[in-house]
């Protein structure tokens, strides 16, 4: 199916006139209509928008204008990214049908690059979850096994790529929400350095942790998308310049002479089959010329608790604006306070309520120092520990998720069990450093396993170079392409 070629290839086809953007868009839309009912990756398919955008790209090509580096590439957008005039719901009842009057910066940048938005993807409500099961409209299924979760919170985006509907989807990663679903679905997922991708227009969950990142079938595509969406945005005060050189330019530099640390505590947190993939990845890197050693960073163990104090704290404040006054759901009541209560009670799901209450508690007078501020101190410790590690190593590796995809419904009633899915991904959110998940082998059950490469701030190039090496060395069992595909134009392995 032509739509399933990687983005780099599709864009080249369109820019050179070998294929039309419209034809690619139509094929993607047809595949979604036909096969997404069994997956549930999309919460909304934007057929009119996609065709309009594709036609505009084709016009540009015909008129000799530069259509952009992602010309004609169909993309899915996680439904917490504001798209003007198009419902942006965060998979929550409280924002059902809400149409933003503005586009997120990353959405504008994708459009400027010629990408074609085919739909909004399903997610855990307000990005709170690791399985996409808290979505108000129902879960997404893992394309590799419909009885299993795709991971979360960007499960819809991960599944849309894994199922071959689009080569690129954007997600957001606060505690692992791009990388963990990437691992469970067997695709590439990048969380950039905090600050390198604008958050303007990303509905906030935890502001000091949220970052937007690409989910793709290839490392080269992840680099392409990062180079397009990254960079300083005057509308985001926490925005940095993306690093130079452009990642896509140095992707093939290899890893000879680089030092890599295998983080003991992260491997120990994983199931045996996942740990086995990490060991194999370490060998592959060594074979490619890197010096690989084990490294112990005990502070990573503080991450889970620190995260579940900091993130809900910030979230409880970020979600206060959903009160039935200005937009979204309103449940009528005799006075404003009662209206706020009725609206929020009806509009938020259980996980969101849990985190709001937890966050309110850890920020409250009498507890803020013992919990929230204490977590910020633990964060200082973790940053120092990782800085020390990066003084010795160019990059670190470990598992992305402790296990492969788990069955739908198996952890939803046990919050702590669900939260433990994030132990390997949380550290990079707390330190603000980049990390990528790359498919590497399969688990005991044949399901995808992701290996995580972590790097120091602004070292996306190093992290993705390493991921490219792993991509080339991926062992048998690594999912090549999506379910149901007859694999033309699949990922180069």
């Amino acid at each position, binding site marked *: 199916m032509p739509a399933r070629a990687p983005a780099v290839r599709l864009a080249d086809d369109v820019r050179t006139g070998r294929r039309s953007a419209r034809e690619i868009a139509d094929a993607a839309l047809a595949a979604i209509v036909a096969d997404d009912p069994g997956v549930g990756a999309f919460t909304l398919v934007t057929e009119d928008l996609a065709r309009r955008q594709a036609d505009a790209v084709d016009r540009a090509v015909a008129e000799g204008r530069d259509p952009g580096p992602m010309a004609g590439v169909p993309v899915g957008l996680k439904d*917490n*990214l*504001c798209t003007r005039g198009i419902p*942006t719901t*965060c998979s929550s009842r409280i*924002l059902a049908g*809400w149409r*933003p*009057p*503005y586009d*997120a910066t990353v959405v504008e940048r994708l459009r400027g690059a010629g990408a074609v938005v085919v739909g909004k993807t399903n997610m855990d409500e307000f990005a709170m979850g690791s399985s996409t099961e808290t979505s108000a409209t129902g879960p997404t299924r893992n394309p590799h096994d419909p009885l299993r979760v795709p991971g979360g919170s960007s499960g819809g985006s991960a599944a849309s790529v894994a199922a071959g509907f689009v080569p690129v989807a954007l997600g957001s990663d606060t505690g692992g929400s791009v990388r963990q679903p990437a691992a469970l679905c067997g695709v590439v997922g990048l969380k950039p350095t905090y600050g390198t991708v604008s*958050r*303007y*227009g*990303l*509905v*906030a969950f*935890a*502001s*000091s942790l949220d970052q937007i990142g690409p989910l793709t079938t290839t490392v080269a595509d992840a680099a392409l998308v990062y180079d397009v969406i990254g960079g300083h945005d*005057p*509308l*985001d*005060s*926490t925005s940095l310049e993306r690093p130079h050189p452009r990642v896509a330019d140095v992707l093939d530099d290899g890893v000879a002479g680089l030092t890599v640390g295998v983080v003991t505590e992260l491997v120990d947190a994983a199931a045996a089959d996942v740990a086995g993939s990490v060991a194999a990845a370490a060998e592959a890197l060594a074979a490619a010329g890197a010096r690989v050693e084990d490294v112990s960073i005990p502070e990573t163990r503080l991450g889970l608790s620190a995260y579940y104090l900091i993130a809900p*704290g*910030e979230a*409880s*404040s970020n979600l*206060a*604006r959903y*009160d039935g*006054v*200005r*937009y979204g759901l309103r449940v009528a009541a005799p006075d*404003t*306070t009662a209206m*706020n209560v009725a609206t929020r009670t009806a509009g938020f799901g259980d996980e969101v309520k849990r985190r709001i209450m937890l966050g*309110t508690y850890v*920020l*409250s*007078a009498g507890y*803020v120092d013992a919990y*929230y501020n204490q977590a910020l101190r633990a964060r200082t410790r973790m940053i120092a520990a990782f800085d020390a590690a990066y003084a010795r190593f160019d990059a670190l590796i470990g598992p992305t998720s402790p296990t492969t995809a788990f069955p739908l419904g198996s952890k939803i009633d046990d919050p702590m069990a669900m939260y433990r899915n994030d132990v390997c991904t949380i550290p990079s959110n707390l330190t603000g450093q980049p990390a990528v998940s790359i498919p590497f082998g399969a688990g005991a059950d044949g399901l995808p396993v992701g290996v995580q490469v972590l790097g120091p701030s602004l070292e996306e190039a190093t992290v993705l170079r390493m991921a490219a090496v792993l991509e080339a060395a991926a062992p048998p069992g690594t999912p090549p392409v999506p379910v149901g595909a007859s694999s033309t134009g699949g990922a180069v392995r």
Partner: protein
Amino acid sequence: MTGTWEVVVGLEVHCELRTRTKLFCGCRNAFGGEPNTDICPVCVGLPGALPVLNRRAVDLAMAIGTALGCEIRPSTFHRKNYFYPDQAKNYQISQYDEPINVNGCLELADGTKVGIVRAHLEEDTGKTVHAGSSGRIHGADYSLVDYNRAGVPLVEIVSAPDLRSGEQARAYVTELRGILVASGASDGKMEEGSMRVDANVSVRPTSADPFGTRCEIKNLNSVRSIGRAIEFEAARQIELLESGNEVVQETRHWDEDAGRTVTLRSKEEAYDYRYFREPDLVPLAPDLEWRVSVSASLDLLPRARRERLASLLGDDGPLPASRGDQIVTVVGLGLDDLVVAAVDSGAPVSLALSRAANEAATDAEAARRLSASAFAELLVMEADGSLTPTQAKAVLGDLLAGTGDDPAALAAARGFEAMSAESLAEVVAEVVAAHPDEWERFRAGGEKADKLIGFFTGLVMRSTSGQADGKEVAAELRRRRGPEPT
């Protein structure tokens, strides 16, 4: 009457900054626009929006801090979390334990020094109108929210509890307002909400006793109501204490019509604002260069302006009260630059001060636009007798009204040529000739005769359209009569 009790007052003044745009977004900072026309994702609290700090607001906050003698420090922003419909995000971005300005001082005209604890940046809320019979919030049927004002930059100035009366509080607010206007930070229009005052009032038997329980009186919007409210509240608390009751710590509202403070009906609870550092903003650490550029561009403050005028009058001891009042008026209306410039161009100081404080003050806005050289020229014409005081005031009126900008031309247009002695004598002769009976009575001399000076002067004035100088008419009449008959 407070008798021997000591009244203790601290004031919190919220000052809207005169920036073109809001504190965290590029929407216009404007008063009185159509509702919800100055809004954007940021200030209306849409999902996904992010704040970006307005540099000019920081400049003005530092200007205020400098003008109040504060220490300007590196600072951070915090979220103050509470639900209210006019608070678009249900949190306010403010400054908490690391504010930009701390430890200043404001000196009142009477020399009292009032400590300034802090002056920090924060965003304003939207405005709510309540639909119901009273227009007040209680008993309203519903409310309507306009977010035009949401996000407007404020500096909150917190004084130490150093004020001891309603009158001192009024003086503090007046002086502070002058400083805020002079520093360029505010337009000073309290009637438009540019400055809003909350007063913390307590009483204690003597200054040696610890502070009593205080009540906060919110939203006092004129200098007058500040004084009245504090005086009422102090008396209320004293009466409570003297009759053996306690003062309950609470927030009260000043009812201007009834002339009393009333408890706000909402249950008083200690709000838990759950302050935490704003993760969407980064710290502010103005370097020396930035701080110096702000203080270097700071205009003269009111106290310095008053001293400048006083020094023009010469420093022969304390000024008479009338002079002092004129100086306060002239500086208060922003006309001191005009006076100083006019004096530089040769105008006599006391005349310049008088004309500015009395006549020019009637249209202060126009007076502030007056050309100093034109003003000076007019004053010189009056001082050297080319124009009578009446004539000079008329020409000044023309200058203020914008009829023209050349005093000599304006005087000529009105026919205010200086009357020569000969033409004056001619007119007097005509008038005298037309009224022989009165002239005979005047020639006879005595008390009654002097009253006829007014009679003849009036006729001379009418005949010359006010151009004649009354004193010169009297002198001419006397000269004509010759020495009084004994």
